[in-house]
């Protein structure tokens, strides 16, 4: 009789082990699924960067040319300098910007240099949020209006 009881106990174990394993795995997956919407809806860094990069083109304090009215998208060449951009875009210690104004030559300005230098680490999506966009712009240089590109690369430490 004792052998039979031992046999039954080990048989019970054989049945319950896979069940417990299945339960643990399923519980883990369910918990992961539930937290997905939560993580995403607090992720506003990309939205913030999209809004911030547009300031360079929409705001007359930044680059927008003003001839009595604000011409969003037309860059006043005299405004593309470090001093003016640092003033109109006071980046906090988490955000860095790299601006490239491309005509027949390339002019580069970095805002918050310390952070802008980390743009090479944008592959690390866990710690950095990066955005990059190239605008087709018109550049007003005294009397002359020429076309060019403005690339805005932005990085934010999460």
């Amino acid at each position, binding site marked *: 009789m004792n052998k039979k009881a031992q046999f039954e106990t080990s048989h019970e174990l054989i*049945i319950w082990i*896979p*069940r417990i394993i*299945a339960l643990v795995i*399923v519980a883990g*997956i*369910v918990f992961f*699924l*539930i937290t*997905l*919407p939560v*993580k*995403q*809806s607090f*992720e*506003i860094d*990309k*939205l913030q960067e*999209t*809004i911030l*990069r*547009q300031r360079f*083109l*929409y705001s007359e304090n930044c680059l927008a040319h003003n001839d009595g009215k604000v011409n*969003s*998208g*037309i860059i006043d060449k005299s405004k593309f300098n470090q001093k003016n951009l640092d003033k109109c875009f006071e980046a906090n210690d988490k955000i860095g910007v790299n601006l490239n104004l491309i005509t027949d030559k390339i002019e580069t300005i970095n805002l918050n240099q310390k952070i802008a230098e980390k743009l090479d680490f944008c592959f690390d999506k866990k710690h950095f949020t990066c955005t*990059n*966009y*190239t*605008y*087709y*712009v*018109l550049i007003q240089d005294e009397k002359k*209006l*020429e*076309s060019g*590109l403005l690339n805005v690369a932005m990085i934010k430490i999460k």
Partner: protein
Amino acid sequence: MKKGESAITFVFSLIFLAIVITIFYALFLLSSVNKANFSINQVSLSDVNINLINYLRTPLNTTTVYDLMINSYYNNDYRELETLSENIFNRVYDNERCPLWNIKGEINNEKFFEFESKFDARKYTLSQNPRNFLRIFTDDYLATRSSSFDIVFPDNKKAKITLLEGCVE
């Protein structure tokens, strides 16, 4: 027979669980990605707007691309406009990151010109609809954004000019 029945139940339960979890994984992922992307998409349409308005304002000797567009429409000859549009947009959208651009003009919903990049659709998943189910299976999908302007044409006509861009996200 009973022992067999217990194993079958176990396997069938696992199969059922796998199906349920996969479906809800897709649902949860799509819902969370769509919401955040929807507002980013809306705000980033403004970037396309800047490219479109500057395309129309691009200077051409004493006139602009807008004037060339009108002349092309009245003369029904779009060759110069096409060449110019390609020069501009192939420069703005580098083939690597943004392989797709398309610009078209419509008057009273009738297209009067359309130009686009030399784009191989088979290489990318086009996610026109943010709820595109395929998005969860491919890392590399093409996020398309488009923006339109209803602009004044002579004789008080209105032309809808639409610029669409497709960039790898």
